[in-house]
């Protein structure tokens, strides 16, 4: 009966996805106006490289958003991990063994932080936004403590330089790391029981509870994954920058959340996909890249990005409203003059 659908690749569905259309349109537009500079293999690799750090964070933070929560500590975890790793690397004289020890120490920080958040959020009815807003400050406080508010240089660590600078088959290592994270998280969300439980818990926690889903464990694991991914991203960032700073990754949590939301993951939980979230990141990456290629001064980048994000979300909401048919047009009456002609 439903053999047709089993191919798993639905072109029609893909073309009704407004984000794909926007992306195709953007790519076509930029290819035309940049005179061939945009549409090259090398530039596409650049775009992927530019989103690799936020992309790794998105792989984790999407779990939290799918649960109807949010994880603003991805940046704090990245900073703690970077600082922790760099400190350990220095202690070992920037050897490869030290780098690996630093990597594990940093990731352990992220896991502990994520586990803590999961534990609190699964047991207390605290809004995740508030908790992670506060704890992100705490995390940056810890970073300042570790670094003494100084830059920690790890320029002579070969292992970290290899990650930060090297390419394999022309593609930078961070892109490979992003790809691995994405594939693993994609499989977890789409092919494992745990992934199903994430959607069920985010969609209706009470119903999931009564169906025998261990929702507390589901939440703890999700935030632990998010903490791990934030930390991993922080380590890669330190490799790319050859240093760890007290303000490392600050503000990244907003980019991560923007990409997830643009990617169509519902903030109320239970709906959306990791592919979508990653597509959101690609969209932002393409826009930034296009602005650079077009020679738009960087002081305008945030402005243009913000406006495009607003347009994308507005379009999405309008088409969703039109699809359901019943929602009232949010723009109705906005442009009508208030004056009324009275007879």
């Amino acid at each position, binding site marked *: 009966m439903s053999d047709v659908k089993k191919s798993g690749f639905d072109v029609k569905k893909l073309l009704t996805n407004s984000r794909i259309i926007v992306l195709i349109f953007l790519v076509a537009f930029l290819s035309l106006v940049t005179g061939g500079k945009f549409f090259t293999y090398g530039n596409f690799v650049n775009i992927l490289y530019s989103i690799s750090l936020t992309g790794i964070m998105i792989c984790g933070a999407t779990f939290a958003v799918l649960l109807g929560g949010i994880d603003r500590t991805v940046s704090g975890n990245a900073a703690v991990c970077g600082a922790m790793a760099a400190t350990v690397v220095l202690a070992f004289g920037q050897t490869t063994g030290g780098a690996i020890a630093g990597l594990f120490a940093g990731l352990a920080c992220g896991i502990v932080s994520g586990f803590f958040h999961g534990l609190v959020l699964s047991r207390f009815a605290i809004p995740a936004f508030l908790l992670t807003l506060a704890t992100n400050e705490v995390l940056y406080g810890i970073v300042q403590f570790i670094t003494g508010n100084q830059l920690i240089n790890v320029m002579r660590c070969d292992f970290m330089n290899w990650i930060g600078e090297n390419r394999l088959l022309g593609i930078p290592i961070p892109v490979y790391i992003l790809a691995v994270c994405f594939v693993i998280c994609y499989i977890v969300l789409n092919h494992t029981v745990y992934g199903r439980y994430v959607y*069920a818990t985010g969609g209706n926690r009470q119903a999931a509870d009564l169906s*025998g889903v261990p929702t507390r464990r589901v939440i703890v694991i999700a935030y632990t994954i998010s903490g791990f991914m934030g930390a991993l991203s922080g380590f890669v960032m330190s490799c790319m920058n050859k240093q760890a700073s007290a303000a490392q990754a600050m503000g990244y949590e907003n980019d991560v959340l923007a990409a997830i939301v643009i990617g169509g993951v519902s903030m109320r939980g239970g709906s959306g996909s990791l592919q979508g979230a990653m597509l959101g990141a690609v969209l932002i990456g393409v826009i930034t890249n296009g602005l650079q290629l077009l020679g738009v001064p960087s002081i305008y980048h945030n402005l243009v990005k913000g406006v495009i994000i607003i347009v994308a979300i507005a379009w999405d909401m309008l088409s969703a409203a039109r699809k359901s048919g019943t929602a009232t047009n949010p723009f109705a009456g906005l442009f009508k003059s208030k004056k009324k002609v009275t007879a």
Partner: protein
Amino acid sequence: MAEKDLLFEMREIEKVFAHVHALDHVNFNVRRGEVHALLGENGAGKSTLIKILTGVYPKDGGQIFMDGKEVEISSRESAAALGIACIFQELSLVPTLSVYQNVMLGKEIAKFGIVNAKQERKQIQDLIDHYGFPVGANDIVETLSVAQMQMVEILKALATDAKLIIMDEPTASLSSRESELLYKIIHQLRERDVSIIYISHRLEEVFNLSDRITILRDGKNAGLVEKEHIVPSEIIKMMIGKEVSEATASRELKTSDAEPVLTVKHLTRLGAYNDVSFEVKRGEVVVLTGLVGSGRTEIVRTVYGADPYDSGEILIEGKPYQPKISRSVATGFGLIPEDRRTQGFSPLLSVTGNVAVTNYDKLSKSGFVNKANENTLGHEAVRLVDLRPPNPDVQVGNLSGGNQQKAVLGKWLTRDLKIMLIDEPTVGIDIGAKDEIYEIIERLSADGVAVLMVSSDIAEVLRVAHRILVMRGGKITKEFNNGVATQEDILMASSGFAAEEGKEADA
């Protein structure tokens, strides 16, 4: 046709959605000071008609008259300006504000932006006193009961001089005592010449309250009945277009002699229920009935492992059982929770997604989901509950109430069940789907599943029960296990009039 006391009239109303006639030349009118019920199964066109008359949808044809003059209702505002107000199922009050602040919201009495609270309060208190509502102008809305909140909604309508108030399932979330209060208020409104359009799935209350009943079926008028001519079976026939059995007025009960599956001994949870003992045998349908708040739901939740208990014992097939949800699911329990929307399903997930949640023990191998089996299960569940549309990929939130409940049932039907716990399965569900759900319960019982059900709907109790336990104030006060039980018997027992064994009513 040209009745003099006609307040409101809709003539030959048409509405087309994507080439489907949702309303096909529907006529509907309301007299001054009458309660006019609108009956029909889900999808008959009731809500479309209401949305047209409150200005949510534009009509595609026909005319609307108010006080004999033709009017256009193009928006909620224009409906309100004509004196039409709607009390929706979901209340639209600001919980943290007081009653008078809610009522005056958007029409504050103010000078230069400064509110005259004293005058507002007095005005609303006068209105409350005039109609005799049991609320105070200063009460904070979130401290009120649901019934009182509805009264605030009604006050909001009255404060705008509404002449026509639409009540959409107003008693759906009320206890019987609260419902009584609402009926009283409806009578008072009617005496003061306010007209009411009443929509409800509870047929008895519709028959008792209404002056007239308009019946819709498939978007067409199926009948208009005056109070004197109300014959329940006739009206039900008009609604569904076929005969239903009248066998729900009483029921022949019998005690099964199969072995007990669930045994509850002296179970107590302070403040909820006290020293409750009963058993449910293989293939038996035992119904816990009584008023809302008598402890029925809490017992079911305790047995399932969702709520704790203080003392007592629970046995499954004779062996002591420590309730815990995951253990219950693994042991062969199923649960249809009290409120399907908040506890039963995930609205954004597909039918398959919802149904599979309880079945991953069989659908997965070392943590990985077998998608082919998952899809097969979705189709199987759709077939077992006869879901409409028969598509396992629809989001459950987009289904009708009856089909949502069938999807919740689908979670369990593919499992090897021992005990099915069912809590108020048909609240807000149309008659056709109700019958199908009863048939599913009967099928479960025939397969040897022990069914423990909670229900306040007496017709429903008599339709499915093998044995009936009546609860009052946290105790089982009466058991019907043999012979014939009638609606009256059960009503008497649950309201506490049947103190025949010399017991004083101690509540």
